[in-house]
């Protein structure tokens, strides 16, 4: 049996996409009534749910409160049924802690925390189905949830992954492409200003190729921004129409 090619001779990936093409992106805001903000996102087969509470008074040790800013508290967890084999520890393992820390770093850059001194903002993200691009789906879902909660943001945070296969840069990797072991980068971008909130690179990559991979990731982030923008505008329009005036 021939090995699965990541990029066929005609330039198609295993799921039939072109190298720079993204997976189908669907998103909904305000899926839950109880939290301050919530959002659900589907990127291809990856499904992520994000929920935001805040800003509210510090829970837990008050000594951790920052006197001039809000504390952003993120938790990343994967449902036990999200991967091929049942996941033993949904959260608390090293990978989840690392992801939570990355999410916290990303959102501290985007949220205007100086407006809420000595308070706390909680962002909880849950992966319901993992098919590659977990971190990116989380960031996109959390952005929508933070906008839904009415917390002031500097800009959207759009994330996408990119990899390299035989000199061709691929955007938005699926699980198959991630598992193949080539170099992959995850980029979280603030699209309007072009500033990067987080850039993570796995495996080794020659610096001559870095430009191509970053370009692919940047282009994908801007495409994600266009989709999220449309979702947010529709949601705002719906809300104002429902409330009258």
């Amino acid at each position: 049996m021939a090995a699965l090619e990541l990029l066929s001779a005609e330039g198609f990936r295993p799921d039939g996409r072109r190298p720079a093409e993204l997976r189908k992106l669907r998103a909904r805001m305000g899926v839950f009534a109880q939290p301050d903000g919530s959002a659900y996102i589907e990127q291809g087969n990856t499904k992520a749910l994000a929920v935001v509470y805040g800003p509210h008074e510090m829970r837990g040790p008050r000594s951790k409160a920052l006197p001039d800013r809000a504390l952003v508290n993120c938790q990343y967890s994967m449902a036990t049924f999200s991967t091929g084999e049942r996941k033993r520890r949904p959260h608390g393992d090293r990978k989840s802690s690392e992801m939570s820390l990355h999410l916290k770093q990303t959102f501290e850059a985007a949220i205007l925390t100086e407006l809420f001194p000595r308070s706390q903002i909680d962002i909880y993200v849950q992966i319901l189905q993992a098919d590659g691009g977990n971190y990116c789906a989380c960031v996109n879902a959390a952005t929508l949830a933070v906008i839904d909660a009415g917390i002031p943001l500097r800009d959207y945070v759009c994330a996408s992954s990119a990899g390299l296969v035989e000199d061709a840069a691929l955007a938005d990797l699926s699980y198959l492409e991630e598992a193949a072991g080539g170099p992959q980068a995850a980029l979280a971008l603030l699209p309007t200003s072009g500033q990067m909130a987080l850039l993570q690179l796995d495996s080794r990559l020659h610096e001559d190729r870095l430009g191509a991979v970053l370009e692919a990731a940047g282009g994908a982030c801007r495409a994600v921004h266009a989709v999220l923008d449309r979702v947010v505008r529709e949601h705002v329009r719906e809300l104002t129409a429902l409330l009258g005036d």
Partner: protein
Amino acid sequence: MAAARRYCVPGERLCSAAEAAAGSGTYTRRGAVCAALAGCLRRGGGAGGVPQVAVLRDAEAQLLPDVGAVVTCRVCSINSRFAKVHILYVGSTPLRSAFRGTIRREDIRATEKDKVEVYKSFRPGDIVLAKVISLGDAQSNYLLSTAENELGVVVARSEAGVQMVPISWCEMQCPQTHTKDFRKVARVQPQFLQT
């Protein structure tokens, strides 16, 4: 029908900083005013006649008590040194989750601070109007003060469970049993009274 309104999203550039000041829901970056919320754009004259641009959301965003704000709180417990309260309203906006605050003994009254007895000023269950004097430090909650004529107890129940009527700035009387209780009573401004 309302005029065509403009919706904006976070990060969208609204105008230059020279044309208008940044109102609520916006921030300035590199000489331009950008939106920070997803909502409706509202242009208006701000304080001092300077045009201001603000982004409004229909749902109430969580408000935080700020220094100098008058808040409505409920007393949960008292001590010989302070009273612990739950902050319920900031101005006239209800808070989604109650914040905790403290009124120290020396902040209850403006005059004769050392002769104050907390038991004769507040009781658990009273609704109090207070002003935020500090956001607190690493150990404490919000610090509040009632050291003004307009601040203090507005609603209190007697031991019989009936709402008491204020007689003076330091006494309230129960209309049913006619017993007098000591409280630090607020002199509510006439425009806030509902007749």
